[in-house]
């Protein structure tokens, strides 16, 4: 499983990527939308973990662009805000339960990613 992490908090994504790698999950990270788009040029990812609020391109917009580019990609939103509107919009984009409020327990995140992967494998 290859994961793309996007969050404007550099310390957060870099550390998270490192910790995921300790758990056998290959993770690349970007701190903004453009960077993320560039990374997808070179690599393919199974799951993208996106912050809702990132500079210039919003998390939702980025999700749409990535989805257009790689339809098979799964998405998890990660947010510090958790307002009702955001919750509703993100749930509408990705489906129930793919909306995690920071700080996220790494085990929960891995479980969620595995769930998504398994679900896509089951589906033809």
């Amino acid at each position, binding site marked *: 499983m290859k994961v793309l992490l996007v969050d404007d*908090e550099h*310390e*957060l994504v870099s*550390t*998270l990527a*490192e*910790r995921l790698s*300790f758990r056998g999950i290959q993770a690349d990270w970007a701190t903004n939308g453009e960077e993320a788009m560039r990374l997808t040029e070179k690599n393919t990812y199974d799951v993208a973990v996106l912050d809702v609020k990132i500079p210039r391109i919003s998390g939702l917009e980025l999700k749409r662009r990535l989805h257009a580019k790689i339809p098979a990609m799964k998405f998890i939103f990660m*947010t*510090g*805000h*958790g*307002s*009702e*509107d955001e*919750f509703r919009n993100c749930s509408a984009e990705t489906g129930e339960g793919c909306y995690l*409020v*920071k*700080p*996220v*327990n*790494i085990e929960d995140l891995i479980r969620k990613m595995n769930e998504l992967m398994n679900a896509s494998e089951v589906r033809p």
Partner: protein
Amino acid sequence: MTVWEKFKPKFWDYVDAAAGPFAHLFNFRRIWKLAVLLTAGVALVPLVAITAIDYQVTQKSIESEIALRTSRLVSNTRRAVSFFLAERRSALDFIVRDNSFADLNDPERLQAILQNLKSTFGGFTDLGVIDPLGYQRIYAGPYRLEGVDYSEQAWYREVLERGIYISDVFPGFRQVPHLIIAVKHEVGSGAHFVLRATLDTERFNHLISHPEVAGGGDAFLINREGKLQTPSLSHGRVLDTISLPVPASSPNTELIETEDGQGQLNAVGYAYVEDTPFILMIVKNKKELMKPWYKTRLQLMGFLAASITIILVVILGVATYLVNNIYLADQKRLTMLHQVEYSNKMATIGRLAAGVAHEINNPLAVINEKAGLIKDLFSMREECARDEKLMNTINAVLSSVERCAKITRRLLSFMRNSGVTIQRINLGETIHEVLAFLSKEAEYRSFHISVHVDEDVPQITSDQGRLQEILLNVINNSFAAMQDGGHLEVTVRRHKEHLVSVTVKDDGCGIPKADLERVFEPFFSTRTGKGGTGLGLSITSGLVQELGGDISVDSEVGKGTSFTLTLPIQTEKKEKPSNEGSLGR
């Protein structure tokens, strides 16, 4: 409690201190007074005016009818009296013209004439012929009066002067009232004689006692001195002086009102009978005469009083009802206004809290990851993984992060729910969520809090945010009343088929009975000096109503208070007021 206090409408003592320059718009007592005065004025003035006019007109018409009848009676009777006397005078005139002095000088002749007069006219007692020197030459009658000298008597001088004399009534020798008629006859060349007749007054009396006068009235003749000439019913016997004053001389029939000796008001009609000393008087008791008018007047007044009473009762009732409704509407408006204000405040606090939570969540996430990384790294090195102190330290950091995360998450979820959304709610969870917010205060003040949810309580559909706000307000309210170490019980029960009840019972200071029914009124507070606005419970009550529920309170001073919320299991989704669209987002 006086009767007034019992019936005093609610708006009576209401003063809207916050209304400022528009206070007059909310002076309900003034509005009420204005409404009552204006309506009462418009309704009563014409009624009273019409009644007064009718009163006057009716009284006048009755009085004038009485006057007319009296005056007609007086003039008819006078004519009769006048005619009666003129008839007798004419008879005497005829006698002196028909008979010469010489003829009359014959006693037998005079006796015959007297006899004829008695049998034709009746009432003649005697006849006498007086010669130019004033001596009664011949006399026919029961007495022996020949040769009496009348020359010095006033009546004789009058008859010489005027040719006719009619006397006052006098008792006569047999104490029977009589009167005298005397006529002078010029024989020519200055010679003359006088014929004198005495009449008894029985027929005269008969003439006066008119049947119509009988009812409550009295008709009689008096002379110029006020002495009765004919018998009266209530003013004395013949020749008594009447108690009424002698009326002023007048050629016509006159009507006056006088008071008699007993202070009774009398309507008096009188007329001077021409060429006689007589005044005809008809005296009627005014009270007796006005009796039909008094009856009419009583009916009129009764009708007026009844009308005024009914009008006033209706006006007072309607004005009180309407002003009270305006007052209630205004109270509703005020509550709504404050609710909006409060909601906006809550929304602002919500946004602020959400912002703070967000700002904290980000660095918290970094700490979480960094600490997690340290732990990961330590776990990979054996000497570190075995170092218990090191692992405990890092675990403590991680669990603190977890605690912080819980707090911000709770805050966020609380604010997330402040919009109006109807969803399925587990009441027990909601209560615990609210209590968690207040757990620090409860801990510091050592409150004992117990929550009991009956097993048969179903999930309800309601608005989570509202419900949290309601519970928060009620529980906060209880906390404020409780002593440190107090007990709070929250009980959830199924109530009837489609309701659940949440009872929040504390053992705080309680609410006095007098205040109990006012606790849900806006601005009612016993803690105004201590930061209470008096709005909490009124807004809570408004919110409960919005959810289709009901809130009631039961309290005993010193023992505690219990608030009971009754909520429907199913809540219809209501249209949201526009101002609430931005709540907590």
